[in-house]
């Protein structure tokens, strides 16, 4: 004879596809409702923004695009926000991508950001209005994309000797010496800082083999999954700032007054969190109720 199921038992054996459907409905509904939630910036992101914002034009920043399409949702917004901010200030950028499908991400980001910078825009941050006149972003002048090489730890060490050691050419096949912005740029000594946007172990190599050996300011943009693990390096000063997940990206967009996909997504993020917390609470209620029933049944 089957025992009569109460509502909690039913709740516990619910087909998980109903859970999926509920999450989809909430996400789509919040995304369709057009509102935005305020983003409060945090110290970790502010320190990155303040450092990059203080750079004079023609300084060089190395941006390591070390993520594959699986993590693009969180890291692409960071790339867009940071690179647009730098290019608006006429800071030059060296891109590398040491993960296997990273070149696809970097190439896509460079194309998109170059397009969006062709338009005149006005930004308002730090209480100052910045009028940006649209301009053409030129390969070799505004940026150099070094491309991919295997064995990232060794490449990070190699770039500390000379970029030309492992990268005789850039991604598009031009010798580095033929690129105007690379004249006189030998290694990390000529780079103001490194921003590593990463979804994997490459960050560890940037900390141990890059910052640890060559002492440049290192800033991290990380996927949410990794963020908490890198706080010790923030505490010890090995890392100067961390952007964590979509929230970190949204904070950077807020700071640079450049709203993009991260800010756009935060309202959905919030309501999805409500759903997950609701599930945790419901699951626990069901668990305790059925446990109590079992205990009573045992007696």
């Amino acid at each position, binding site marked *: 004879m089957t025992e009569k199921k109460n509502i909690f038992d039913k709740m516990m054996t619910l087909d998980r596809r109903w859970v999926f459907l509920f999450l989809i409905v909430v*996400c789509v509904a919040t*995304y369709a409702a057009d509102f935005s939630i305020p983003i409060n910036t945090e110290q970790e992101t502010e320190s990155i923004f303040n450092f990059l914002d203080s750079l004079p034009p023609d300084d060089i920043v190395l941006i390591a695009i070390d993520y594959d399409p699986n993590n693009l949702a969180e890291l692409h917004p960071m790339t867009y926000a940071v690179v647009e901010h730098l290019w608006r200030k006429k800071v030059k950028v060296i891109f590398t991508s040491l993960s296997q*499908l990273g070149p696809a991400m970097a190439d896509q980001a460079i194309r998109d950001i170059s397009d969006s910078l062709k338009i005149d825009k006005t930004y308002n941050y730090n209480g100052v209005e910045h009028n940006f006149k649209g301009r053409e972003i030129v390969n070799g002048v505004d940026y150099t994309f070094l491309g991919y090489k295997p064995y990232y730890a060794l490449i990070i060490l190699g770039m500390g000797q000379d970029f030309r050691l492992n*990268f005789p050419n850039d991604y598009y096949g031009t010798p580095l010496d033929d690129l105007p912005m690379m004249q006189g740029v030998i290694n990390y000594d000529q780079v103001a800082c490194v921003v590593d946007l990463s979804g994997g172990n490459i960050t560890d190599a940037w900390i141990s083999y890059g910052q640890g050996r060559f002492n440049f300011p290192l800033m991290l943009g990380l996927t949410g999954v990794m963020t*908490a693990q890198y706080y*010790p390096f923030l505490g*010890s000063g090995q890392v100067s700032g961390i952007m964590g997940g979509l929230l970190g990206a949204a904070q950077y967009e807020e700071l640079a007054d450049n709203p993009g996909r991260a800010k756009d997504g935060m309202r*959905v*993020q919030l309501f999805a969190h409500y759903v997950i917390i609701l599930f945790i609470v419901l699951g626990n209620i069901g668990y305790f109720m059925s446990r109590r029933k079992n205990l009573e049944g045992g007696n």
Partner: protein
Amino acid sequence: MEFTDFLWMTCGIFLTLATFSFLYKDNPFYKFAEHLVVGVSAGFFVIILWHNTLVPNLFQKLEDGDWYMLWLNSSEWWYIIPALLGVLMWTRFSKEYSWVSRWPMGLYIGISTGIAIPLEMANRVNKQLHAMMVEIDWANFFGADGFDLLSTTSGLAQLIIFLGTVAGLIYFFFSKEHKGVFGGVAKFGIWILMIGFGASFGYTVMARVSLFINRMQDTKAWGLEAFNANDIANPNYGSQYQIVFWALTLFVVGYIVKEIMQHLKSKNA
């Protein structure tokens, strides 16, 4: 956006929906997308390896040599050596000669472990220990500006970080049984670790959800493009955009209806 670009975008949306269909159940569309992406990512990587590494780092170094001289007459002939070592890696496919692949492996492992020892010791262990050993700010034990338990710079916070790290390390130390005072400290360690894992978990939830948000954003961008509702109006816009949009939408709706009918039928049977 040109119409061909819009078609590409539609292809991306179709593949997105095909992959999402796995949430309902495994089906041919999902299998198609899954197998396609394996091939395409490998193909992409072949091209990156070729154009980004083989050509500039090997072929161009040897290009002034001749193949019938085995490139030994090129000005940088020594690049032949790593290439040969690399080719030896391919002996892995042979049962008889796979041991030869250990030579290049040995070289790589030697070098990577050799660089790891000093640098990991210095940057993971020493610098972290150094950061842990700060002098506790007893004067501002509860925060610099008044009583504040949640200050991250107060002496209390420094003390918690110090004790938490020590306790966490003790928890990981399995050579001594976790009993008595040692066990008590280890218990505090696991408490601190659990808070750390909780923070990680909170962030993980955020990360996973944002992956889904990105897919919604792409789909919305496609819809805006189909109805020319973007900020920048499309000069080449025509009804063909909407035809493609409705074709894909009808296809998806039709597929869902078919699945529901099938489900109801099997339930009644």
